[in-house]
């Protein structure tokens, strides 16, 4: 398929931001009718490159060539006129509008007298859906659609505007496994009809499953472009990181010990008083990793907050080491030896403007070794921080560097280094590798495995099935705030787990 003429050519694109070169003389040729994947770690320059192609940034050097003609793309509108459309990772839909209303928003067809031609628009949307095999009702309210269906609306939106080249930014990040399959089916249909697709991802299996060719970016520059059929996951990973990478964490088998964390019929409410966690019961033993899988937004955040004392438990009972902590606050729970890697490290995990050493001691700062009367013992804090930074290989210019200056991977290392200090017995890790690049993901997963091997009780809440399957000893599935299934390692396949995650199946409560 790469024999056709390039429909899009990026030549020697360079884009600098203060202090960084986001794109460094990038060459990229995308041919008509291919699915071209763009992979790279966070900060490799994928998004910047695509924003240039979509008219959101102007390159400092180099040129964009569309169908053989050099163009200057100054706005998304202009890009769309040239047939380039972007499907954003975060949907830009109005839930109370119908599918059709969302699709035409901003490009409304009108009849004479400036009346909205809604019926014609519905027909047009239905025609697009039929042509590309999208199962969707043009009159359905977006609020009633599943995440996968909402994504289809986003794609139809771009097709409706006449896009020939579709840029999909991390499209699978929000999808359950079945939905990913459906998306890929749609993409293949689009390709068959002559559309060109640029697929941004860092999930390598998916890239290999769907793409014709793959271009790898590292530190702003192109490492190479390879045919998907002729490469492997390991090779791509090595190209991305620049060295061989372990793709799976080495498992450590341990005999589970006593129950450390025990949730019994937990209920928790959201800010509006609606139950987001319903009657959740599970236990985590010393020396095991219990994973809670589920599609994002099924009560994971609320459950984690309830477990660490940040959200009141409306009903049920929570015990740590047999002690009732149902109504305990975060400090009390921490003091019982519970560590918490929050799902959003910027919001809950770090105080970004504060120094690395201050972030490392946060939450431990009232321990006697750090205090003398009302004073904080700076020297002790510095010693502790230096020790942590060394042990966890956090790369910082100095201990006084503010956390906001660090890369995502190093920030997460700061959180992990802090939470693993002082020998916690229970770890609640919520999406601990979200947004991390391969290297940092490997590091965090290794740490979780080590923690388990040392006898920690680890609760892993993750939306990544890969992560769940490579780490967990037992797996619970969260759907609409309920645990709808519980399995031992090896008892279930990812495909079957996907059915539980989307609510298609559930175990009958025993």
């Amino acid at each position, binding site marked *: 398929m790469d024999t056709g003429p390039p429909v899009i050519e990026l030549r020697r694109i360079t884009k600098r931001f203060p*202090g*960084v070169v986001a794109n460094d003389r990038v060459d990229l040729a995308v041919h008509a009718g291919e699915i071209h994947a763009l992979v790279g770690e966070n900060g490799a320059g994928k998004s910047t490159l695509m924003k240039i192609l979509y008219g959101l940034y102007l390159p400092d050097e180099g040129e964009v060539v569309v169908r053989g003609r050099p163009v200057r793309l100054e706005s998304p509108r202009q890009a769309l006129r040239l047939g380039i459309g972007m499907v954003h990772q975060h949907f830009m839909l109005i839930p109370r509008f119908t599918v059709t209303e969302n699709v035409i928003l901003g490009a409304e067809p009108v009849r004479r007298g400036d009346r909205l031609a809604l019926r014609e628009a519905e027909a047009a949307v239905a025609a697009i859906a039929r042509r590309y095999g999208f199962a969707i009702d043009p009159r359905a309210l977006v609020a009633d659609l599943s995440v996968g269906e909402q994504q289809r609306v986003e794609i139809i939106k771009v097709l409706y505007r006449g896009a020939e080249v579709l840029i999909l930014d991390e499209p699978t990040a929000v999808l359950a496994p079945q939905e990913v399959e459906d998306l890929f089916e749609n993409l293949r249909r689009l390709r068959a009809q002559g559309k060109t697709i640029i697929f941004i991802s860092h999930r390598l299996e998916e890239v290999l499953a769907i793409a014709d060719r793959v271009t790898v970016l590292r530190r702003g520059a192109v490492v190479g472009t390879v045919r998907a059929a002729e490469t492997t996951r390991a090779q791509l990973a090595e190209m991305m*990181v*620049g*060295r061989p990478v*372990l793709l799976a964490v*080495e498992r450590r088998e341990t005999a589970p010990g006593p129950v450390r964390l025990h949730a019994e019929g937990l209920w928790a409410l959201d800010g509006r008083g609606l139950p987001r966690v319903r009657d959740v019961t599970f236990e985590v033993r010393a020396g095991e990793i219990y994973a809670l899988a589920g599609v994002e937004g099924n009560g994971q955040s609320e459950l984690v907050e309830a477990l660490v004392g*940040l959200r009141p438990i409306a009903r049920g009972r929570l015990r740590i080491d047999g002690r009732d902590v149902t109504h305990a606050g*975060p*400090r009390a*729970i*921490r003091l019982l030896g519970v560590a*918490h890697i*929050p799902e959003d490290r910027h*919001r*809950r*995990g*770090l*105080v*970004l*403007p*504060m120094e690395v050493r*201050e972030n490392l001691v*946060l*939450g431990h*700062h009232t321990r006697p*070794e*750090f*205090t003398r009367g*009302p*004073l*904080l013992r*700076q020297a002790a804090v510095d*010693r*502790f921080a230096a020790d942590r930074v*060394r*042990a*966890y*290989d956090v*790369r*910082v*210019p100095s201990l006084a*560097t*503010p956390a*906001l*200056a*660090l*890369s995502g991977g190093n920030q997460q290392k700061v959180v992990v280094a802090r939470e*693993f*200090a*002082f*020998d916690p017995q229970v770890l609640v890790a919520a999406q601990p590798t979200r947004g991390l690049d391969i*290297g940092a993901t490997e*590091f965090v997963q*290794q*740490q979780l495995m*080590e*923690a388990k*091997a*040392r006898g920690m009780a680890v609760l892993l809440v993750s939306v990544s099935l890969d992560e769940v399957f490579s780490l967990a000893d037992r797996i619970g599935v969260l759907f609409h705030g309920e645990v709808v299934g519980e399995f031992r390692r090896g008892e279930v396949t990812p495909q079957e787990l996907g059915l539980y995650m989307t609510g298609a199946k559930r175990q009958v409560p025993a």
Partner: protein
Amino acid sequence: MSLPARLLLLQVLAPLVAILFGAVVASGILLAIDRDPLAVYGQMLRFTLTRADSLASIFFKATPLILAGLAAALAFRASLWNIGVEGQYYVGAILAAYVGFAVRGLPGVVHLPLAVLAGAAGGAAWAFLPIALRLRRGAHEVITTIMMNYIAAALVLYLLEPGLLRDPAQAGTPRVRTPEVLPGARLPSLRPLLDLVGLQIPGYSSLNGMLVVGLLLCVLFALVLRRTTFGFEVRAVAANPQAAEAAGIPLGRVLFTMFLLSGAVAGLVGLSDTLGFFGYFDIDFPKGYGFLGISVALLARNHPVGVIPAALLLAFLDRGAQGVQVFAGVPREVITIMQGVIILAIVVAYELLTRYLRALRKREAARAEPARPPLPAPGEGRRAGEAAGGGTP
């Protein structure tokens, strides 16, 4: 130049550039009204800096501003918007005056501290309701403190009614005020102290001990914020309350304490006037220190010690305005405009500095990352795990 030295230089330069910018803008106005800016500024500097009475006046004017700036800065440091310093100092001042005249038979060493503490208690009490409402009900303190300002203004008027705190000896005169505080509750003048070190200030100067209290409090709070566990918690709560909460810091307690401290310092703002100058609280008691305090805190970037030069700058400009008005016939509004421009320019300059600093830090961190191999080999990761298992600091 080393990085820390360069940063220090920039931090000193930023306000100086802002002051220069304000002076340039004011020059434009002076030229527009046919005055020679250099002559006017020369006169202003001579008047303010070469006369002992001017210097004493600057420090006297700066005393309430230091305290008001500190009060505002303490709240702002905790990301709490205490707009109620104005009302809090009114309540503090009248309460201190009351203790000053009504409590009898105490020696000065007890009476004066008691009156000062009464001022602080009054300010803290006036701050209690807004912070309680904020923590319990989520009512925003900007709204409630502004409301409390109006209530305070009405409350002191009511308290000055005959039969309450109004001085019966002034009956039949148009003077509406409390009785004079007893000599034991008067703040001592700084004149004898300054005489001792050879500084001559005129006999009518009211420069008093409240200045020393203000300076000490600034230094004390700077140390508390920098060096104590509590200060650490305050900084964490201010910068990211959610992360602080997740780390087990009692959010509500930290916010409550800082707000009451802010109110208590605010309660001292009026004491230089009540106990050090007038000797009573009257219906024309100086207004507006609370709002000036917000400007001072802004200029000082909420740093307790930075409040001191910021307050002195405003007091200097105020005294300078008097000078140019009397001796150069220039309307004092020119200086007021200059003051406003300087505040704006400093805020902008600091913001630019902060952004520059952030970019600099990021570049530095980016350089640090590839300096070592991208990842520990698996074996090293294990060692990291063991070190963590040890858990010793």
